[in-house]
């Protein structure tokens, strides 16, 4: 359980920001300051501002809320300054505003999802109604143009228990799947695809008994204590799995990134023992193929698809787009166009918010243009929120890499 006195910021002030050489390379790659001059940019909001905030927290500036936490500044930084983490921590530590109803609603993917799936037809109708969009826009600050993800009729977990669980015992090799909230409540398709693909590859799939939201939405919406509670519970579950000698795979780049890196660098937790036990499914499969522990099953002969791979920000930060793209390249019939790695502007729940909507669309525009020019059958990405944003903003079909594998193998 979360320790109330856990001081997530002090335990992590290791002076990393002092490695900054003030070279301003990070500012070149910030998607927010490119479209909004009111965001002070990663250099000012990050290491430069941090020196002042260490003197006096009053130097915290609400404009830091405009940061997407995309970490593209960190990827660009040649000196390993964790600029995004500095900003994220400053927000959690200093923001004087208590999270409101909207923040709680957007963050509580697990709780809201549990209720919403039970009532999904009604909720989905309500979500799409103009009047409720207007209500959301006016009262909650969730932008009306936004297609809030609809809720599945049946959670992924329910589907799994009913349709997949019985077969899983028949496999010698096993792998544990961390499905995440979005697969469970909003879009079970990548999860279902994963179970089928892993079964095809000879792995039985297990779920985690007590899977919790990874906590990322709570960090993004100013609720660090709640994020800590979730992190503790997940780390506990993951430890037990690791002790059993099993590996955990995921289909969400953000959940993966959160557990691996944000637990450590934003929440200040020691996750060293479980960090490398959590991997994206595409990376897991790629590596097994590379080590010749696996062989790809036959692909149906008529399979042919031209896809564009979009590197989600957190994939860029993980440096793992390589795995997904190169796994897809190995599938006969797949023609892969690698899009320039650009932010889609969604950043979890950021793009939902009324005040961010326009900015979010502006940020994504270069990517949307590139997608339109790519002339492909579908866009493929590892991130569920990029999925929503790209689908809504370009009208393109968007799929998860595992869904492509599933299509190819079926």
């Amino acid at each position: 359980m979360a320790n109330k006195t856990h001081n997530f910021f002090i335990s992590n002030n290791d002076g990393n920001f002092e490695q900054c050489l003030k070279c301003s390379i990070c500012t070149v790659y910030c998607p927010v300051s490119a479209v909004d001059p009111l965001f002070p940019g990663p250099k000012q909001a990050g290491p430069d501002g941090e020196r002042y905030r260490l003197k006096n927290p009053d130097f915290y500036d609400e404009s830091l809320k405009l940061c997407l936490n995309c970490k593209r500044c960190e990827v660009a930084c040649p000196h390993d300054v964790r600029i995004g983490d500095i900003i994220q921590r400053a927000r959690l530590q200093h923001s004087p505003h208590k999270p409101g109803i909207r923040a709680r609603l957007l963050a509580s993917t697990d709780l809201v999802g549990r209720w919403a799936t039970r009532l999904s037809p009604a909720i989905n109708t309500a979500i799409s109604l103009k009047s409720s969009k207007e209500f959301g826009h006016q009262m909650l600050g969730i932008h009306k143009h936004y297609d809030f993800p609809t809720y599945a009729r049946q959670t992924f977990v329910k589907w799994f228990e009913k349709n997949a669980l019985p077969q899983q015992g028949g496999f010698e090799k096993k792998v544990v799947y961390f499905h995440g909230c979005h697969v469970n409540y909003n879009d079970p398709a990548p999860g279902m695809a994963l179970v089928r693909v892993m079964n095809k590859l000879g792995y039985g799939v297990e779920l985690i008994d007590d899977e919790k939201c990874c906590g990322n939405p709570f960090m993004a919406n100013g609720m660090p204590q709640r994020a800590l509670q979730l992190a503790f519970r997940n780390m506990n579950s993951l430890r037990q799995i690791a002790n059993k000698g099993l590996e955990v795979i995921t289909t969400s780049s953000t959940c993966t990134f959160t557990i691996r890196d944000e637990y450590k660098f934003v929440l200040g937790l020691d996750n060293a023992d479980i960090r490398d036990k959590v991997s994206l499914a595409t990376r897991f499969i790629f590596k097994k193929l590379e080590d010749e522990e696996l062989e790809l099953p036959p692909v149906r002969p008529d399979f042919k698809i031209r896809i564009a791979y979009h590197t989600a920000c957190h994939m860029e930060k993980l440096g793992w787009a390589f795995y997904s793209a190169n796994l897809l390249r190995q599938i006969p019939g797949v023609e892969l166009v690698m899009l320039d790695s650009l932010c889609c502007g969604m950043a979890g729940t950021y793009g939902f918010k009324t005040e961010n909507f326009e900015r979010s669309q502006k940020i994504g525009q270069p990517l949307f243009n590139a997608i339109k020019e790519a002339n492909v059958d579908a866009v493929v990405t590892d991130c569920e929120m990029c999925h929503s944003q790209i689908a809504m903003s370009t009208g393109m079909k968007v799929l998860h890499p595992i869904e492509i594998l599933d299509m190819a193998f079926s």
Partner: protein
Amino acid sequence: MGKKIQNYDVVVIGGGITGAGVARDCAMRGLRVVLLEAFDITHGATGRNHGLMHSGARYVMSDPENAKECIRENRILRRIARHCVEETDGLFVSLPDDDLDYQRRFIKACLKAGISAEELAPDEALAIESSVNPKLIGAVRVPDAAIDPFRLTIANVLDAQMHGATVLTNHRVTGILVESGTVAGVEAESKDGKFTFLAPVVVNAAGAWCQQIASLAGVTINMFPARGALLIFGHRVNHMVINRCRKPSNGDILVPDDIVCVLGTTSNRVPIEEIDNTCVTAQEVDLLLQEGVKLVPSLERTRILRAYAGVRPLVALGEDDSGRNISRGIVLFDHKERDGLDGFITITGGKIMTYRLMAQKATDLVCRKLGVTAVCATATRPLPGSEPVAEPDDDEEVENTMSFAHRAALGRHGTRVEMISEDKPEQRALVCECEHVSHGEVNYAIKELKADSMEKLRRRTRLGMGTCQGKMCACRAASLFSQADGDVERHVSDLKMFLNERWKGIRPIAWGSALSEAQLSAMTYQSLCGIDRINYSSPTDSDKQ
């Protein structure tokens, strides 16, 4: 500066805190005063110390009288120089190597001198100051604070000027006029030529250079200058002043200063000929670090921005030239009594903490000589920037609407931040990004604080004092100066000199990020810009040493 000969009641030599304080006191008592400084205000020891606002505790064991003076002045400065002081409190920490008996005696001595001293258990000390070595065995809380010597001196100069004083930087005193056993004034030179300042009283407040100035009047003072090296770290590691609870020694004090912290200090006697040498050696750096890390372990992985050294103006009492009888307290010489030279006064020794008292003592003597009866009011009148502010509620509201840079400037200029305009975009634009110095603040410093060179701008704003040591801002500032007066060659030379001056402090600590930063700076200014290829025949700025 038109007239070559000017008349004053008193000439003050030296633009350190003492000279500035004397000029302010004299001006407030209605005297016509001119202050002459060879370089810039705070050029000497004033700008080269750790900025500790002594409670007196540091000297309570060796010099209780001095300590009492300190705590009295400490309370005054908190009132009159609010914007220069940060009320941090201080800790005296005992480590396993130290003697707890010393701590007991220390507390007793503090209380006897009227300095509050609260003994803390190690975990209590860690709870209020987490940076301190967790292996500590004891701690004492005292009313130490941090004081910014640049701001304090500038505020004194400003107030002196507001009371009619003339303050001239880059004016080197070349001679003292003596007529039949009485001082008649001084001769000085600047880039505009030679000047004579006639006055019946001359106050020698030249700090470590007192001996040289006195010799111009044919008077012998034996200075025993002591050099102290210090390190500036890249950010604030500590929030309280941290002292080692033992006899003052190397690397035993860490003072927070605005957004950095300063580790002091070494102490080495230097010959009078070497007081202009402020370069720090690798050995001094290593020694400071080795000791400092014991006090605050995280210093080991904290970036060092620069190293610098100052020279304490210690003086031998009487005509003793052996150095055995050295005062650490205030030294006031009436050279009429001491040497038979009327109208000549030397005020030296002491410390920043007691500058006001030093100024008062010197000015009292000046007044006696001039037959003026006005009394000293410097202890009660707030300095410019430290005027009382109406309601704290209003204050808070005002601050909230301020930009980040304005809030940073508020710390530097106190209430005078109102004079920095933020109305137009060109005023809001940041020139120095590390220290958040806006174009508006640069304009204020040029116009109101008489900054006419990069170094002067730095001392008045902190421009170029941050992490990158001028890499981002120096060229921007030089360009602004050029736009103002069109003298491109002067400002390009000045830019080159400024970067070289920054380099002096970086060199002794040039490893790790500091060396990488220096290389990036060199690639920018030399490789990209080619500033090393510029050689204008005669740099005109007399700020050059």
